[in-house]
C-alpha cells in the first residue's frame, strides 16, 4: 500500500518535474542506495528535476575538428534524480545523446561519452562557491568522472559472440572472469571511472589511493544516457549535509568532447529531504536575478567589456579574454559579481601565454595569475544590473 501511495506521489511529482527553479530534492529512503544502478526500479519513485547543461565556451581548445563540430553547440536539457539513505547519496542523470560513443582500445582519435558530478568541499558561504570549472584557489572541489565503456567484453574486436562474456557474472565463472578481465585489460578496454580533487584547472589531481569510495555507471537506450553516481555523504573529502551544491557535466564523444569541450550546469542546490539546514544556500542558488538586465547590458557596453570578452552580437569577431556566451548558464550570480569587483579572484588560465589569440588576459605575479581586467567597483545597483544581464547570456536549449 505504501508503495502504491509513493508511486502515485511520484507520478504527481513527475508532472511538475519541469520546474528547475527549486532545488533538486534528494528523497529519503530506509533502503540501502549503494546498489542503485541506472536501470534500478527504485528510480521510478524518485522525483526528477530538469536542469540545463550549457556548452563551456569560456576558452576555445585547439582541436580543429572538435571546434567545427561544436561551433553551434546548444544547451541541453537533462534530468536529475537524487535519493539518500542517511549515509549515502545516489544521483541519476539522464540526458539525450543521439550517438552512442564508447571508449575502445587502440583508437587515437575516438572519445567516449561521459558525465561528471562535481561537489565543493566547502559550501558554508553560498556566495563564495568554487569556480565552476574545476574549482579555484583555496576553494577545492571533488569531481567524479565516468566515461562510457563496453561492459560486455569481446576480446578480438570482431563481434565474435562466442567470445563474449558478461564481466558481472563473477559468481558463475570465478577465476576465469579475473583472467578474462586481464586479457581485456591488455586490449585496452577497461572501466574509466575516476575521482579528482581540484583547486583550479592546473591542480586537478586524481585520487588514486582508493580513499574516495564512489561508484558510477552508465547505461544507454532510446538515445538517452542514464548515469548514476553513488557516494557516501561524508568521507575524508566531503561532508554533505542539509542542502549542498552540485554540478553536472556531460561529454559527447561523437563531437570529440573531452576536457573543456563539454556541456556543464551551474551550481545547483540539492536539498536532502528529512534533513535540516541549507536554506540560505537553496535561496542563493535558486533566486531569480534581481537587477535590470536591460540597463545591465548598457553598462556592459559602456564599460567596454566587449573590447576583450566575446559576447555574441556585441563583440567584434576576435577576442582575447574568456568568452561569455554561456556564462549566465553555468555561473552563479555571486561569481559574476565577484568577477566584476575582483577580476583576479578567479583567473581562467590561458594555458601557455601563447595558447590564445592576440593578447594575454592575465599576468603572472609570483606565480599567481593576475587578471589584466581592471576591477569595476561600481555601486550595488549597477552591479546587480550587470549581473542580471550576464545571467541572461546562455545559448538556446535544444
Amino acid at each position, binding site marked *: 500500500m505504501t508503495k502504491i501511495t509513493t508511486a502515485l506521489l511520484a507520478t504527481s511529482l513527475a508532472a511538475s518535474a519541469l520546474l528547475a527553479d527549486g532545488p533538486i530534492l534528494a528523497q529519503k529512503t530506509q533502503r540501502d542506495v549503494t546498489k542503485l544502478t541506472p536501470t534500478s526500479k527504485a528510480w521510478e519513485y524518485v522525483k526528477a528535476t530538469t536542469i540545463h547543461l550549457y556548452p563551456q565556451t569560456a576558452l576555445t*581548445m*585547439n*582541436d*580543429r*575538428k572538435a*571546434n567545427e563540430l561544436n561551433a553551434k553547440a546548444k544547451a541541453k536539457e537533462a534530468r536529475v534524480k537524487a535519493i539518500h539513505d542517511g549515509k549515502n547519496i545516489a544521483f541519476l542523470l539522464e540526458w539525450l545523446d543521439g550517438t552512442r560513443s564508447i*571508449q575502445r*582500445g*587502440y*583508437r*587515437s*582519435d575516438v572519445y567516449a561519452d561521459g558525465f561528471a558530478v562535481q561537489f565543493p*568541499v*566547502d*559550501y*558554508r558561504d553560498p556566495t563564495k562557491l568554487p569556480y565552476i570549472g574545476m574549482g579555484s584557489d583555496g576553494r*577545492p572541489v571533488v569531481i567524479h568522472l565516468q566515461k562510457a565503456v563496453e561492459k560486455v567484453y569481446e576480446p578480438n574486436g570482431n563481434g565474435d559472440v562466442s567470445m563474449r562474456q558478461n564481466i558481472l557474472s563473477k559468481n558463475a565463472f570465478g577465476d576465469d572472469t579475473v583472467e578474462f578481465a586481464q586479457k581485456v585489460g591488455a586490449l*585496452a578496454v577497461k572501466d*574509466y571511472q575516476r575521482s579528482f*580533487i581540484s*583547486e583550479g*584547472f*592546473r*591542480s*586537478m*589531481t*586524481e*585520487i588514486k589511493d582508493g580513499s574516495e569510495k564512489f561508484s558510477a555507471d552508465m547505461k544507454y537506450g532510446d538515445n538517452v544516457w542514464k548515469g548514476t553516481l553513488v557516494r557516501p555523504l*561524508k*568521507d*575524508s*573529502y*566531503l*561532508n554533505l*549535509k*542539509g542542502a549542498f551544491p552540485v554540478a553536472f557535466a556531460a561529454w559527447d564523444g561523437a563531437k570529440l568532447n*573531452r*576536457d*573543456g569541450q563539454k556541456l556543464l550546469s551551474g551550481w545547483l542546490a540539492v536539498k536532502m529531504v528529512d534533513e535540516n*539546514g541549507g536554506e540560505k544556500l537553496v535561496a542563493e542558488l535558486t533566486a531569480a536575478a534581481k537587477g535590470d538586465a536591460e540597463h545591465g547590458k548598457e553598462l556592459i557596453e559602456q564599460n567596454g567589456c566587449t573590447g576583450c570578452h566575446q559576447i555574441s552580437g556585441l563583440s567584434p569577431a576576435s577576442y582575447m579574454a574568456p568568452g561569455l556566451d554561456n556564462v549566465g548558464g553555468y555561473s552563479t550570480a555571486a561569481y559574476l559579481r565577484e568577477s566584476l569587483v575582483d577580476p583576479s579572484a578567479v583567473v581562467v*588560465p590561458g*594555458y*601557455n601565454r*601563447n*595558447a*590564445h*589569440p*592576440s593578447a594575454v588576459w592575465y599576468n603572472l605575479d609570483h606565480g599567481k595569475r593576475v587578471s589584466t581586467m581592471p576591477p569595476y567597483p561600481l555601486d550595488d545597483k549597477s552591479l546587480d544590473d550587470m549581473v542580471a544581464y550576464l545571467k541572461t547570456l546562455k545559448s538556446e536549449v535544444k
Partner: protein
Amino acid sequence: MYWNNVETYPGTGYPKNWMEMGGGFDEAGDLQAGVVPNIEADYGVPWDYNHDQLQFGAQLKPNVEPTWGPNWDEDEGAGDFPNDNYFFYIPRICNHCSNPGCLSACPRDAIFKRDQDGVVLVDLDRCQGYRYCIAGCPYKKIYFNPKISKSEKCILCFPRVEKGLPPAFAQQCVGRIRFVGFLDDEEGQVHKLVHKYKVALPLRSDYGTQPNVYYVPPTEAPPKFDAEGRIIEGSNRVPMEELEQLFGPEVHQAMKTLRAEMKKRKETGKSELMDILIAYKHSDMFRLDQEYYQSIAKKSGISLAPIDNRYIQGKNTPNKFKFKVVEYD
C-alpha cells in the same frame, strides 16, 4: 607508434600528411588548432604474416589489411624516373622545442620543459589523455597511448643525458649522423654547426615552435639527364624550393657554405666544418657533462637520476590531505 622515424622526402611521412595537420604558432605567436591523427589511417597498425601456415601450402598474407604504416612510401620520392627523380631521408624525433606547441596546448600542465637542458617531458600523473598536445604539435611527435589513455613522447633519453651519455638514438647511429650537445656550448660541435657555420637548420621553423633538432641539408644529389641520357652539368635533382620549404630561406647560404668548405678541403686539405661533419670521434660529437647535472642535483639537495622531480609520480600535484573536511554546526 614510433617516437623516432626516418621518412622519405618528398613523401607523405609519418603520421600520414603530418605537415597538413595543423598545430604550431602563427606569426602573431598564437597557437593554431590542429587535428589528432587516426591510429589506423594515419599511423598504420603493425601487421604480421601467416608464416606458420606456409608449409601447409597457404599463400603468404598479412593478418590485417594494411592501409598505412611508417615508411609506406619508402624510397618513392618524386620526379620523373630516371631523369630527375629524387628523394632523401629525414630522421624525425620530438624537437624538444623552445616554445613547444604541445606544452601550450595542455590544459592540465602535464607537459613541462626542463630548465636544465630543455628536454620536454610529459608528467604521466597529470596527463588525462585529452590529446590537445597532439593537435598542438605541428610535427605530430607526441603520441596517444590508448592502453593507458595518456600521451607519451620522446624523452631524449634524459636518464642517459643526466649521466653524461648521449641519447641512444645518437650513440647507436652507425652513420654517425647525429650530434648532441648544448647549443650555448661554444666549443661544442652543435654550436659550431648551428651558429658558427650556420649549416645546421631547424625543420619547418615557420611553425613558430623554435625546434631544437637541426639538419644539415642534402647538398649532393646526382645530376639530371637530358633526353639523350647525357649529364646536365651543374644540375641538381633536389629542387631548392623543396629544401626551402623544409629548412627556410637560410638553406641557400647553408648550401653555399657547405660547398665552399668541401672545395676548400679538397684544395687545401683543411676545413674545420668538414672535420666536424666527418665525425671522427664520439667524444667530439657528444659534449654532455655529468658534472653539470650532479652540480644541479647537489645544489637542489636531491639525488641524481632523475634530477627532475616533476617527473616523479605525484610530485607535481598538491597534497590532497590539505583539504580538510568541513565540519558543519
